[in-house]
């Protein structure tokens, strides 16, 4: 779109992502990791033949599972700890359990080094959970992953975390094995789970950026929808998260950019200055769900015009969480309904297409050389606005099925 143009005009032939990987770079004065889509051509899993790439419908269905999981966690006001009696009994130790949110599949991958000498691991990064983990040797129950398992014996700087250590005590729940090792368990909302020892070792973000003594989970029993990822990088707000542990070196913040298509690359950086053109809104804390980053969404514009939504609609819904792992933005029903109607008014010249899973406002651009859609702008407390890129407005399954990339949180009374 041209600057200040209320429409995105695009070539229909460019709707689908390329088959080859393209690169971009982060600012040079930060510790930056390349971010790629888990199932795109830039992913190391793609290079090794990622036969398990899900369909668009599957991605969206799993996205709904993640959202349901977030809602359950919020409803439970703090996410009560859950102990799996069968597992605890089997292993002879009462394992701590922390119910996290569902992983879904719309996740992005970064590559980090662990141990000394450092070996590289491709991990999902997630702003919706805190504990980082990788699969470790020896492993009782590990899924097939991209790289060889992390082997503590091969690292000169590896150490287990003792049960009495502060890091162990600060987990939401913790327990102790018979040899005084701190055991963790995270059960995600889709029943995926990881169990293992809480350990520490050197985390390498770049050749010149190392975090000695980084605390993470050394998973020895991991099952569920992890794909072939080597593990997970937790970027939530609690003390065990990477941003919290890296705060003494980089400050407590971080910045990422997600690429416009699955064939592009973005970055995740620590310690760099915020971009000069950034507009800020308040980061809100909810003490019942302290891992999540909340902000206040207050309005929406379509085609440059404000959609009529009472501002109380957003607040009454319980606020808005920003999440790197949820694919599709969820809006309170009244807000979504108003957005959908406004968007559809601009799209009358295009043929409607069948709904795609949770996306109910879809169009068929077959036969068009170029097309246009209205811009969509999100407004946050304090006057901050996000004028979404084209890729943030339409979810393109194919030329004959491109959908408004928003959904409703669902019936509040359900």
């Amino acid at each position, binding site marked *: 779109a041209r600057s200040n143009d209320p429409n995105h005009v695009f070539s229909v032939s460019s709707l689908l992502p390329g088959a080859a990987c393209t690169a*971009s770079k982060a600012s040079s004065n930060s510790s930056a990791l390349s971010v790629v889509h888990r199932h795109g051509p830039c992913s190391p899993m793609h290079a090794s033949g990622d036969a398990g790439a899900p369909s668009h419908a599957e991605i969206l269905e799993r*996205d709904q599972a993640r*959202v349901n999981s*977030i*809602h359950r966690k*919020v409803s439970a006001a703090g996410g009560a700890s859950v102990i799996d009696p069968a597992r605890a009994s089997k292993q002879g130790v009462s394992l701590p359990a922390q119910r996290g949110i569902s992983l879904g599949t*719309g996740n*992005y991958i970064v590559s980090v080094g662990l141990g000394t000498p450092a070996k590289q691991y491709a991990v999902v990064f997630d702003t919706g959970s805190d504990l980082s983990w990788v699969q470790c040797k020896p492993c009782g129950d590990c899924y097939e992953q991209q790289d060889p398992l992390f082997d503590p014996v091969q690292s000169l700087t590896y150490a287990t975390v003792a049960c009495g250590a502060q890091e162990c005590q600060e987990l939401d729940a913790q327990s102790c094995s018979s040899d005084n090792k701190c055991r963790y368990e995270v059960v995600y909302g889709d029943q995926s789970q990881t169990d293992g020892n809480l350990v520490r070792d050197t985390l390498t973000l770049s050749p010149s950026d190392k975090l000695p003594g980084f605390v993470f989970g050394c998973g020895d029993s991991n099952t569920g929808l992890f794909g072939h990822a080597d593990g997970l990088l937790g*970027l939530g*707000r609690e003390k065990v998260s990477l*941003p919290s542990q890296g705060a003494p070196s980089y*400050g*407590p*913040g971080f*910045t*990422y*950019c*997600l*690429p*416009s298509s699955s064939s*592009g*690359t*973005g*970055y995740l950086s620590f310690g760099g200055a*915020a*971009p000069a*053109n*950034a*507009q*800020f809104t*308040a*980061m809100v804390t909810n003490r019942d769900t302290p891992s999540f*980053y909340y*902000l206040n*969404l207050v309005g929406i514009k379509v085609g440059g015009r404000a959609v009529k939504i009472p501002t109380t609609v*957003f607040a009454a*819904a319980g*606020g*808005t*969480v*920003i*999440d*790197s*792992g*949820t*694919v*599709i*933005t*969820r809006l*309170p029903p009244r807000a979504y309904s108003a957005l959908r109607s406004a968007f559809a008014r601009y799209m009358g010249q295009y043929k409607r297409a069948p709904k795609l899973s949770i996306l109910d406002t879809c169009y068929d651009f077959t036969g068009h050389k170029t097309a246009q859609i209205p811009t969509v702008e*999100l407004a946050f407390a304090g006057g901050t606005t*996000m*004028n*979404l*890129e084209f*890729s*943030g407005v339409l*979810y393109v399954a194919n030329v004959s099925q491109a959908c408004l*990339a928003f959904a409703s*949180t669902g019936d509040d009374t359900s």
Partner: protein
Amino acid sequence: IGILGNTQQKTFAVAYDVANQRIGFGAKGCS
């Protein structure tokens, strides 16, 4: 609750300024 998902975040530099308790969005952040 509402959720701001990753599709809408694409191409923005999303800055988590924890020290100042604010979140920033910079357009065309990947380039």
